[in-house]
């Protein structure tokens, strides 16, 4: 197939995800903190499109609000990782020598631990909660971005246009900002989408074991955990958040794949 269908398909799925998250910040069909045991486990109907859960909360509202949580946690985690990792990678490539060795080895050490497991430990020590989940996910994304930036930057530092910039008397920091970073942006964007998808899974995973976002804020991961005992009674309680996670990750991955192909073509 020659046409790049991944990009529009991914963009549509991500668009739905983002719009859902944005809408849920100001409005959901029902209040997700509103427990009403009398209306528990209602089947889907015109007033509750996806029905209600075991506490009588509207499932659609939960899914929408979960999108907000998922998006904001992942966005903050990946954004923080970019802010730390990219400058580290640029620095390592620009300075070389012991600075490079230090950044690279420190990244290797972090990579050596199973990320999700350590995030669990991290959340267990600092206590569960959204901000600690963000911190844990961000920490493990720092070496990813540092590494990608460093390898791309090292490739660019060998190019003649960088030599020309040095002949123009520009320093390493200035060359990194003016030439290296703009030319690495495409690769970093692609990597960021991949890490974003992983961050959504990580957030869901942490919430699933109770170490992520705390009630009453809904989370897809915790909804899955809560639905576990009721899987025989109301499978939709598990299917809805599961499908939401899968579609969000799938959409972002498609978007990243489409972007990667476009970046490769531009080069």
């Amino acid at each position: 197939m020659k046409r790049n269908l991944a990009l529009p398909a991914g963009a549509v799925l991500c668009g739905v995800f983002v719009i859902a998250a944005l809408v849920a910040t100001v409005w959901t069909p029902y209040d997700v903190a509103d427990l009403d045991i009398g209306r528990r486990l209602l089947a889907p109907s015109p007033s509750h499109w996806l029905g209600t859960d075991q506490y009588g909360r509207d499932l659609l509202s939960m899914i929408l609000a979960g999108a907000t949580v998922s998006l904001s946690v992942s966005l903050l985690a990946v954004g923080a990782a970019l802010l730390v990792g990219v400058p580290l990678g640029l620095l390592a490539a620009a300075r070389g020598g012991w600075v490079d060795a230090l950044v690279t080895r420190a990244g290797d050490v972090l990579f050596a631990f199973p990320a999700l497991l350590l995030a669990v430990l991290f959340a267990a020590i600092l206590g569960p909660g959204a901000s600690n989940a963000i911190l844990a996910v961000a920490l493990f994304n720092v070496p990813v971005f540092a590494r990608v930036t460093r390898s791309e930057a090292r490739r660019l530092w060998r190019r003649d246009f960088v030599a020309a910039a040095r002949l123009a008397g520009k320093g390493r920091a200035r060359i990194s900002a003016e030439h290296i970073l703009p030319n690495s942006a495409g690769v970093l964007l692609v990597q960021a989408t991949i890490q974003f998808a992983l961050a959504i899974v990580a957030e869901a995973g942490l919430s699933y074991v109770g170490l992520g976002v705390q009630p009453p804020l809904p989370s897809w991961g915790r909804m899955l955990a809560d639905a576990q005992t009721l899987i025989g009674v109301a499978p939709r309680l598990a299917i809805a958040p599961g499908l939401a996670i899968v579609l969000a990750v799938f959409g972002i991955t498609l978007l990243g794949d489409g972007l990667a192909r476009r970046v490769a073509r531009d080069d």
Partner: protein
Amino acid sequence: MGWRGEWRAMIELREVSVRLGETLALDRVSLSVAPGEILGLVGASGSGKSTLAYAAMGLLPERAVLSGSVRVEGGDPAVMNALRGGAVGMVFQEPMTALNPAMTIGAQVAEAIRLHERVSRRAARRRAAEALARVGLDVPPGRFPHQLSGGQRQRVAIAIAIAARPRFLLADEPTTALDTVTQGAIVALLVRLVREERMGLLFVSHDLALVGGMADRIAVMEGGRIVEEGATSSVLRAPSHAATRRLLARALHRPAPRPDPVPGLPLLEVQGLTRRYTGGGGVEDVSFAIRPGEIVGLVGASGAGKTTILRNVLALEKPETGRVLLAGEDFHHARGSRLRALRRQVQAVFQDPAGSFDPRQTVGRIVAEPLHLVPSLAPAEVRSRVAAALARVGLDPGTAERLPHLFSGGQRQRIALARALVVEPQLLVLDEALSALDASTRADMLDLLSGLNVAMLFVSHDLALLRGFADRLLVLHEGRIVEEGATAEVLAHPRHPHSRALVDAMPDAGALPIPPEPALR
């Protein structure tokens, strides 16, 4: 000579036209190559010679519309695939792109054999080793392409091309990326293979001097047509078409004479420069000087240390020992505003016209970059200096708004030159700056450079280019300067064996049976 008895063409194109979108790339071209014959196809870039080669191979892009007939002997006319069922072998300009970096060279040749013939793995391996020996490759078949030199890679590419025993070989600028010594060896190899096997060879090149030394017949292309065709000696002796005369003039080109270099203090002094690398290479105890306005050519095979000298002269790298003095001042120990003042005096043009620009910046920003060395320039002043630099290299100031990838190789080198000239340096360092250009663009650039009246350190593997352009030559061999002298003197009486090898390998337009230059003008 190969087509005297039986006239049976190996490959024949009849009235072939190729349309690429709006443009007519080939216009009713007819051409044939007989067994054992070498046909040289010459033309400036854009003349359609590559399109013709691709049409003959059935390798045209999908959007191309072909009319007329292409017939290959031994090839099934119904099979329009890339290699025409093994009847045709092809050698490309850049061997690295034709080789798989992850496979050993022996395995790649063996694969090429097994693609065309049903033979056992072991037989294919044995024949691959034979093919590698036939192309004069003296490295084991277990090597990977990146472990080989450019010339060795091209030999591997030739081994792959002849592996299936094709009847016809097509070589598209196969030596353009190589130094002159290697170029001579590759050409000799192709001629030997063609003669031994009675293959036909279509040799595509922009270099009439090179083709004149090997081809039986020459066809000259311009604007998608063959404008002249005939036996090599008659085409060279009595060219009938203006395009041929132009190519001949380019092959013999001597730039206009320049004023003699100003005597006095040297502008650049390199004293006892030593820089070695772990894993080999680098230079040892190199000393030389360049006077203001003087053009010095630095020649040597790849790996001789030319780039190391450049990087140290440009202060992109620090020497282990030795000094680089600019107008008497130590370049490597200058700091701050002194360093900026020194940097203003030396600028460079690099080899690769594609890699020397940030692809995301406009030509205006690219050319303006060295003005960073001039403190506190107003934006209007920057713009006017960029426009002046562009005009100086013969480019329209309007190009400043555009992105570099929109320009041809020759124009890009002009942009690179404009960037170097924008700070009005005393010394220009040119690193193989003309190697990637075709002969006519190269001659235009040489004319432009010789009119600049700036001292130059011109690194090249191409002695023919430096003849008549450089005042002095430095011959570099294995990290040391083995010979130094006036250009004419070194070329006429090379003392060191390595310089002699370089001079002998030069494709010599002067030795061709062609009239003296004034008659061409």
